[in-house]
């Protein structure tokens, strides 16, 4: 789909996902790293828990479909090679501290002179300029500054982030959309574009209806554990089951299916079935209209019912009758979720230690231009010789000088 395009990925570990998505869509992607390797290579968890440059699982996960080269941008030779690559590129992603490339004479203003049709995307914590542009930041502090943490966690303890880093993935995915938007503008205007992605703004977007809560209704939402806050009413959505937890929203349509289950199990009398117009139960509750069974009664019955069954029993019973009871899965449960197997979702992937693993698959099924994985994450400098020879016609001596001394290895 994007096979005519070449992408340069200079991100150091914050935003690898952006060029991976474009690569999955067919673009040629070159990951450009310093001779010591991108910072992302130090990112845990590691294969066999061994922190080595080829064993970072995040690096492996988010750098598929990329060729890898090293360039020493401290040297004029390295910078010249980058300029040569920029001339041939359609997209460039970077995620350094603002102005790092500028200080090397490789900022957007210089690069657009070399390539007047370049789309240059800069990913940063708070934005490329402004009062917080230089703030030290990481996953936790940006999740805090972006707002979603104020909505997560129980009221009597601290606000929480998701326990697995998410911020740079939001920013990376957003950068892919940003790049395609700017590319559309470039096609229209014929002019190079600079795009500034703010990870903080990406996290604000994850607040959904909470973004402007105070401005609209005169009060913020506050964290309430797993309670779903809908106007006047709040509903719990996490329930204890026999072997863990399930998420269900006690809405009218859900109750319409579950009430006969309650009756079948003898938890409530049969009169419950016709005792309420169940499909509209939650709407009447939200709008303050009459209901026959109190929310407390209903929630108590759900709690008693769900406690008797395992999460998979509940999932399957729900699927059978058309209601949504979602197990709180961990990564092990997920691996056993048959649906993903049958969709052929998982990608079997050979790790650098020759072991097989599998990773989450392509983001969408396209009828005419299927996404694909053509290569796994590159070893450090793996394509120095191959890429620089074929793209720029450099000889071995020039490559050795620009890359910090490595020809890499030819991959089959």
């Amino acid at each position, binding site marked *: 789909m994007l096979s005519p395009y070449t992408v340069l990925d200079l991100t150091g570990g914050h935003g690898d996902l952006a060029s991976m998505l474009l690569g999955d869509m067919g673009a040629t992607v070159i990951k450009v790293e310093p001779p010591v390797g991108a910072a992302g290579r130090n990112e845990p968890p590691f294969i066999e828990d061994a922190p080595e440059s080829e064993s970072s699982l995040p690096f492996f996960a988010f750098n598929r479909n990329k060729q890898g080269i090293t360039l020493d941008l401290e040297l004029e030779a390295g910078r010249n090679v980058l300029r040569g690559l920029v001339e041939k590129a359609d997209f460039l992603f970077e995620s350094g501290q603002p102005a790092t490339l500028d200080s090397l004479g490789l900022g957007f203003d210089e690069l657009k002179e070399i390539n007047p049709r370049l789309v240059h995307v800069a990913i940063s914590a708070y934005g490329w300029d402004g009062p917080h542009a230089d703030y030290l930041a990481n996953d936790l502090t940006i999740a805090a500054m972006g707002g979603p943490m104020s909505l997560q966690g129980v009221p009597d303890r601290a606000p929480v982030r998701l326990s697995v880093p998410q911020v740079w993935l939001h920013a990376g995915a957003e950068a892919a959309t940003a790049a*395609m*938007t700017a590319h559309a503008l470039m096609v229209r205007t014929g002019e190079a574009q600079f795009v500034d*992605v703010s990870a903080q703004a990406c996290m604000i977007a994850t607040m*959904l209806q909470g973004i402007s809560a105070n401005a609209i209704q005169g009060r913020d939402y506050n964290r309430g554990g797993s309670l779903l806050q809908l106007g006047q009413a709040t509903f719990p959505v996490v329930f204890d089951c026999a072997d863990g937890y399930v998420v269900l*929203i006690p809405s009218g349509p859900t109750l319409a299916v579950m009430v006969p289950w309650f009756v079948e199990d003898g938890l409530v009398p049969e009169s419950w079935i016709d005792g309420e117009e169940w499909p509209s139960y939650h709407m009447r509750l939200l709008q303050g209209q009459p209901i026959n069974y109190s929310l407390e009664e209903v929630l108590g019955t759900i709690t008693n019912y769900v406690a008797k069954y395992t999460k998979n029993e509940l999932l399957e019973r729900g699927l059978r009758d058309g209601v949504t009871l979602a197990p*709180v899965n961990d990564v*092990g449960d997920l691996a056993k979720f048959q*649906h993903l197997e049958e969709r052929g979702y998982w990608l079997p992937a050979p790790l650098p230690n020759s072991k097989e693993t599998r990773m989450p698959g392509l983001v969408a099924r*396209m009828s005419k231009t299927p996404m694909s994985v053509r290569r796994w994450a590159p070893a450090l400098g793996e394509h120095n010789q191959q890429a620089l020879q074929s793209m720029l016609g450099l000889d071995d001596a020039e490559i050795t000088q620009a890359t910090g001394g490595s020809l890499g290895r030819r991959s089959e």
Partner: protein
Amino acid sequence: MMADQLPFEGLKVVDISWVVVGPTTVKYLADHGATVVRVEAAAPLDILRTVGPFKDGTPGPDRTQFFGEFNTSKLGLSVDMKVPAGLEIAKRLIAWADVYVESFTPGTVDGLGIGYETARQLNPSIIMASTCLMGQTGPAAPFSGYGFHAGSLAGFYEITGWPGQAPDGPWTAYTDAVSPRILSATIMAALDHRRRTGQGQYIDASQLEMSLNYLSPQIMDYETNGKTVTRNGNRSQYFAPQGAYLCAGDDQWCTISVETEDQWEALKVAMGNPAWANDERFGSMESRLENHDEIDEHIGGWTKDQIAQELMQSLISQGVPAGVVNRSSDLEKDPQLAHRNYFRPLEHQEMGTVPYAGHQFRIKGYDSGPRFAAPVLGQHNEYVLREILGMTDDEVTEAIIAEALQ
């Protein structure tokens, strides 16, 4: 910038999706210039029109910013596709459009008679995207629900909250926060392919599958190392200390994160080099991870009387990553967001002037943002039918008599 230089000016989109993922995906195209017709029914209403936040706390389908936030720059058409005249209008829009997005449970649009086969006959080069929780095929395809459910199935509930307690889960429907960015990039790439080749296509985008990419390292950690990640408050498995610490005032928090030895040394200096911090039990990353509870008590004692904002600025200036926990009311005052001209006040027909969230990226020299407020239900019925579809007075009257318009 001239109007004809918006990135997607001239692009035509029919948005028959609802709730969050479909509408938010299309919002990118709408805000950046596409003409988007958002097709809605009055019954059942898009669930987002029934929940808050409501303007001034007064409920009403045209008073909620939950709907408004994700439907900016779109024309609103309310039509009942279950009556033949309404379905006919939907078909005419599909014939008109370049892009058609829907987000119902699999089989729904086929049942209505506007599935991909029909769409392609009406419009051979159309790009149609279907997005739902589980994807169009597979045993769980009929699984209908919200991002809460997909977020739980994907594993995001498991990893949000405190160890030893029931999961808190992410705020609302997490896969709704992940999927639109990925699907919009996909549609834009399909559009670029169509620009070059004339070829349209069908996109099946499962919200579960898109979102699982955000857990790739942890899934591989399970597959290859046998490790199962779970919720751990705000702590990292790899470095310490890290947490949200209570400050002065009412429920004010500052996060602090120490990823390196240098940052630990800087934090010690910032705290005034207290004796406890030089205890050997806190001398290495491993020992700090081990004795994290104790460190948190010390840091919490030091932060509890400080102003969160001042503490953050002081820590950052001394080389320690920090950030206050912002609420929506704090974001309104955030100087960085003000610098980015983030919030965009727009005039809404029922709510008056209200702020809309701005974009997460800025394109230099182009003041992008939502172009106009979200529609009230059926706000552009006349315009869409007459100006876009070229329907005559008689045709519009017939549609009204047939109760196709709502």
